[in-house]
């Protein structure tokens, strides 16, 4: 499938037919839809973060954040997620260049880093649970697990999406004209990454007022 790196007159003609070339704002519909969707997601996570913040330090019983957090482990997993965004940029660039080998490598790498992050999160949740922090135990457990859980679910959806793109790229290749499909996946992936930076700051970096063990 090396032919996809060249732009034949036929594909150029097909490209001129793509709907984005006729849109009022000059932005492809799909991209605009994702920007809108991500705006909505900002309010979704904003509400979860607001809930967490308004209940910070209000737990009536432990375990408290200081009892369970392992700052080093979470820092590593956060670093992995940040790096996955870098790989995502490389993947998109490879698709836009028409570089099939790199496309496959970076798409897989991004998904893999996402999976590693999810592995860390599963480990962290199990650890916390072992230390007595459950969903129902106190407000900290309730707000922490639900907020980070929804973020993890978003990462999982992203991983599924990236792996699907990987399979498509493997089986029939992603032509340059279809780079938009990877671009919007990237938009989503970067957004999920940014949300994690906010959550990490709110949960791990701002000192929690409640007493620890």
């Amino acid at each position, binding site marked *: 499938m090396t032919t996809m790196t060249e732009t034949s007159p036929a594909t150029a003609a097909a490209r001129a037919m793509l709907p984005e070339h006729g849109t009022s704002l000059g932005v492809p519909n799909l991209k605009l839809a994702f920007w809108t969707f991500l705006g909505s997601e900002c309010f979704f996570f904003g509400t979860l973060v607001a809930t967490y913040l308004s*209940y910070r330090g209000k737990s009536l019983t432990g375990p408290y954040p200081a009892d369970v957090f392992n700052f080093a482990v979470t820092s590593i997993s956060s670093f992995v997620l940040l790096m996955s965004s870098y790989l995502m940029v490389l993947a998109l660039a490879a698709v836009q260049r028409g570089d099939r080998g790199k496309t496959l490598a970076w798409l897989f790498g991004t998904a893999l880093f996402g999976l590693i992050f999810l592995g860390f999160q599963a480990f962290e949740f199990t650890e916390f649970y072992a230390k007595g922090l459950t969903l129902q135990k106190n407000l900290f457990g309730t707000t922490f697990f639900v907020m980070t859980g929804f973020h993890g679910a978003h990462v999982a959806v992203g991983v599924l999406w990236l792996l699907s793109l990987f399979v498509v790229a493997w089986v029939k290749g992603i032509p340059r004209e279809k780079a938009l499909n990877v671009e919007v996946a990237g938009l989503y992936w970067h957004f999920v990454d940014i949300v994690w930076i906010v959550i990490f700051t709110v949960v791990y970096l701002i000192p929690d007022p409640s007493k620890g063990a």
Partner: protein
Amino acid sequence: MSATPLTAHPAHAPPAAAPSGIWDWITTVDHKKIGLMYGVTAYGFFLLGGIEALVIRAQLVKPQSELVSAQFFNALFTMHATTMVFLAVMPLSAAFFNYIVPLQIGARDVAFPRLNAFSYWLFLLGGLLINLSFLLGFPPDGGWFAYASLSERMYSHSPAMDYWVVGLLVLGTASLAAGVNFIVTILNMRAPGMTMMRMPVFVWMTLVVQFLVVLSFPIITVGLIELLLDRTVGTNFFLPLHGGDPLLWQHLFWLFGHPEVYILILPAMGMVSEVLPTFSRKPLFGAPFVVFSGILIGFLGFGVWSHHMFTAGLGPVADAAFSATTMLIGVPTGVKIFNWIATMWGGRLRFTTAMLFSVGFIALFTIGGLSGIMHASPPIDLHQQDSYFVVAHIHYVLFGGAIMGLFSGIYYWFPKVTGRLLDEGLGKVHFTLQFVALNIAFFPMHFLGVDGMPRRVFTYDEADGWHLWNLVSTVGAWMIPIGLLVFMYNVWWSARRGPRAGDDPWDGASLEWAISSPPPVHNFDAIPNVPSDRPLWDQKYGDATLGLDRRDPHIHLPPNSYRPLIAAAGVTTVFGAFLIRGHDIYRHLLDAPGSTIQSIPFSSLFLATVATGVIVLLYGLYTWFFEPVE
């Protein structure tokens, strides 16, 4: 959610045989058909919510009435409000967004036709799910605001509120998908020459509404998820016992709930802004002011929510701030009212039924707006809170406002949709009956409220002195269906035998009147060029031309698809599984009262339903994404 090409496309393959009959409706992605489906479904729910209201009024017609139990009365007022807000007014507006907006901006469809079908199916399934509760004997009874802690499992054991939460989650997903779709459609699918400021005011109001939906529904979605987790998993979000704060629910609910009232009223304002200029034969007076007022209302709408919480004790600073923003938001609303009146001033008025409903809208909405401004003052609100005065207010803005505006839209666009005119005589009878009836029904509620009658009480005592005005109100309420019967007969008769409307029965100014009635499946033979904010008047009375007299050689329309319905069924099944969990918990609590929610194991039926839903959803989405749309 891939973009479906709608612009001119070479025909790659011979068109498949068009589906017919019911299968065509199930698989359609045509915005006009979806609009009709929204309209018919929502009207059905409107009648259901209306019947609930009639029973409420029958119960209140005399003191110590025993027509329904106090328990069932709770369910009636909860479901009446929930139905009218989420299943009647919102989707009736959506019917117009779907049918009219693409026509008014000169597009062949919405940006994502299959996503549009997905929204409709979610709306239908969500509406059925929430009303399933009646059949199973657990209608939601915690009020349409579902205040915690009352809505928590501790105080509402039965699955009733689970139906409410789950239904609203499904409906919210539908609205969010539609919101994204229409924002992209309006921003990106406008015909050449149609700048933002040339868009019809109805399109503008639709755009503002979609932004409100996209930004306010995630807030209530999170609130609903938190409440659902409290009820089914045993988390502590709104439970004071574990330090949770019920006020947080109120904040989340009204942060959504106030923008929601503009989601309900702005579409009607948009319709009125189309009808008044047409029948005054004048452009809308100060159209940019109407547009910017709408935008300002959208922004301010996010900053006034705590006026619903003046009695919650937020303190004088918060009360004063929210009082000020609430009074401020009355200004752009007032601007609009003056613009509408000024549009009529000096115009050559034609009092068609559509026009009458629009004028009725202005009068009734102004009354509702004035009582709303009263509530902006905390000391006054302290007296009116939870009294019938508020019920009067809400019905003047939502029935006198939104519903009258929607009927104006129905009479205005019916000829475009069906190709036939509604009978004007019957229309005027309908208008008169409805206008008189709703004033008899709702105006006395002001008196009852000022006299101290609390809302949501299932009965009262003779000594309270509320008998007379309740009687009057009930008589008025029961007159409303008479007008509606006239309307339904009119629709039934006129759709088949009404006089032919022609393309442009009202001498309209916007693009939908430039094409045939009903419009062809591809809407426009050629994508029009838009010279101004009233293109058709320019073509008829000026020297502009819209360029509609040619025909694009390649018109590509997306094929039918049943995938959106599958995906919607998957989403509904995942959420619906939590109803099974609710029933499980209820049964368990009956056997062993006082057990904690986390001690109740997840049943295999619940887990299997979640898994089924996820699989169906993934199947629907994957086949959807890889479905050929060429």
